[in-house]
């Protein structure tokens, strides 16, 4: 057992992946000499050299497009997008190439590319630095999408994503980079594409991922004090979804609330609501409810606390669920 921040766990996981497989190549803006603006790649260029940790020109399409070529040549590129809001110049390469080449080639050209994206708000930043674009990727066939919430998952899931033969968009909860927890570096991790019950409960099933898992757990804590029992599930994988544990839970609780920072409209909560309602229709005592960002432009940072779901807003919606 080692105590690691989430950021350091990612760094350690990257290091391990690079040691395990010489074909792993890291690419991104400022990831080499600087070690990344969040220092997630700190020290890696020094130890693995410039050929394996590449400070790229300032062009996200370039990063993803060359990653495709490297993948065709047998490499496993792990690319860093500096902030969530800067992935869009690469969107064409991701959606029309990375996501499609396996199908286009009928499996002859696997695309084992990991796209690391620090996401979410709450760090007081300027425009484009606080967004939650995961639904854009989850809606894209051919990509797999995961989000980590804690140091242990950060360490393991990153290695699993890199080892995956498919392209994985890997969301890191930037405002939790400094959160610490024990990480068992010898453990056998759960499968990458699985969700997990992180707190058992009976009254309402609460789903979250990434930065909102902590918020959901806090909400469950607070609810418990008022005698209400929330089961919290960390989705971990956003595409494919692993709704088995969710359905099992909802069949017991009859109520389900999904939390995410992303705009509510067509966010992950929409898909989950649609599926869970279909599979658990006769068990539901209330509609699946969503607590998400408002459907507005991400506001200036002085307003982000009012924009982002927090413990109170979660409990408020849990209350609404109970009222049905």
């Amino acid at each position, binding site marked *: 057992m080692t105590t690691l921040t989430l950021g350091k766990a990612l760094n350690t996981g990257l290091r391990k992946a690079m040691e395990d497989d010489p074909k792993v*190549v890291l690419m991104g803006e400022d990831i080499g000499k600087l070690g990344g603006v969040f220092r997630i790649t700190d020290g890696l260029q020094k130890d693995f050299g410039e*050929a394996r940790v590449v400070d*790229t*020109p300032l*062009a996200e*399409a*370039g990063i*993803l*497009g*060359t*990653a*495709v*070529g*490297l*993948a*065709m*040549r*047998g*490499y496993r*590129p792990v690319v860093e997008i500096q902030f969530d809001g800067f992935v869009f*110049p690469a969107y*064409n*390469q991701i959606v*029309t*190439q990375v996501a*499609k*080449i*396996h*199908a*286009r*080639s*009928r*499996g*002859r*050209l*696997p695309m084992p590319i990991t796209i690391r994206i620090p996401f979410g708000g709450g760090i007081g930043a300027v425009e484009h630095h606080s967004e939650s674009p995961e639904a854009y990727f989850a809606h894209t*066939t*051919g990509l*797999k999408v995961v989000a980590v919430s804690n140091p242990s998952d950060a360490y393991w899931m990153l290695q699993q994503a890199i080892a*995956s*033969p*498919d392209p994985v968009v890997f969301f890191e909860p930037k405002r939790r980079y400094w959160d610490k927890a024990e990480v068992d570096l010898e453990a056998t991790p759960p499968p990458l*594409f699985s969700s997990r019950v992180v707190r058992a409960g009976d009254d309402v099933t609460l789903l979250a991922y990434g930065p909102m898992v902590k918020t959901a757990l806090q909400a469950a804590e607070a609810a418990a004090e008022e005698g209400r029992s929330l089961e919290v599930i960390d989705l971990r994988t956003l595409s*494919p*979804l692993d709704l088995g544990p969710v359905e099992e839970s909802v069949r017991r609780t009859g109520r389900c609330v999904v939390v995410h920072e992303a705009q509510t409209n067509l966010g992950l909560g929409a898909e989950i609501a649609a599926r869970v309602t279909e599979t658990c229709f006769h068990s539901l005592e209330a509609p699946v409810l969503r607590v998400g960002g408002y459907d507005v432009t991400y506001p200036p940072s002085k307003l982000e606390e009012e924009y982002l779901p927090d413990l109170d807003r979660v409990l408020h919606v849990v209350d609404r669920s109970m009222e049905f």
Partner: protein
Amino acid sequence: MTALGEMVDPVPGAGAPHLPAQPDLVQLLTPEGERVEHPDYAIDVTDDELLSLYRDLALVRRWDVEATALQRQGELGIWASLLGQEAAQIGAGRALGAQDMAFPTYREHGVAWARGVDPLHVISLFRGNDLGGWDPLATKFNLYTVVIGAQCLHATGYAMGIQRDSGTAGGDGAAIAFLGDGATSQGEVNEAMIWAATFDAPVVFFCQNNQYAISVPIERQSKVPLFRRAAGFGFPGVRVDGNDVLAVLAVTRAALARAREGSGPTFIEAFTYRMGAHTTSDDPTRYRLADELEEWKLRDPIARLKAHLSRSGKADADFFASVEAEGDELAVRIRKGTLEMPDPAGTEMFDHVYAEQTDEIAAQRAEFLAYQEGFAS
């Protein structure tokens, strides 16, 4: 200020592009089939090579004509003709070594041919049977890329992989990206050149300037000759007569050699003309004059080599007849193969989305099968 030079590009819509008057154009075979020398691009070709180049040119044109006919008869969804661009493609394709990897657009049937890709594998894509049927790694010919310009970054990344594999800049082999004149306006294409320059990547950008992007003439993409673009990024650009298979071969060979030896990228502008429609869906009479095509017919890439071979006595009537016979056989094989091509199974679409199948898609596949069986019963 940087002087821009005085050279003005010929305006295709305004009459004939005056190729011989272009001082920067590399040419080894005149439109009349006369062999000329170029100080930078000496080439040593045996007579056999010349004959086999001719054979390639003639056969890919025959393939192309047959595919167009098949489309007209409803057997293909669409066809993108290479008519007029045979020399550019065969010249580039034949310059490639076994270790080199090609990244085509959707029109490089000539390069496919030179790489040994089965024409029927190309046909099946345009028939709508698959999204790319050949083995891109075995043939060293990537699948066609329809999104304009996207392949240029792939080629550059692949070239960066070559560098890493060999441990030395350049390494063994090079990558070649094909692109059109229209593609040069895409941001990604320019990024590819920037990356290639920065990393000295062993990649050649082979641009077929066929004067049009569908209906849009080259002047809308660039007011100066395209090959000049490269210097702005810090690597050499060269304009070659794209209807001269020898010149293309020589220029591409040189660029590939330069890339392989670690000296970085080259941009080649093959100055040519799309003699047919953009695709079988297109009607070029809406945007260009018949005159223009007539002018370009005088520079036909195949007629030019034929004239050279005949006049120099390197080939006789028997040779040309034998190539024609071979073309007939090829056409028959293509037609027969197309008509006999089995339709893909519906389950195909579920089977290659991921390397590791998801439960979700597996479930949809099962649902699909059950639904289909519901109809069968």
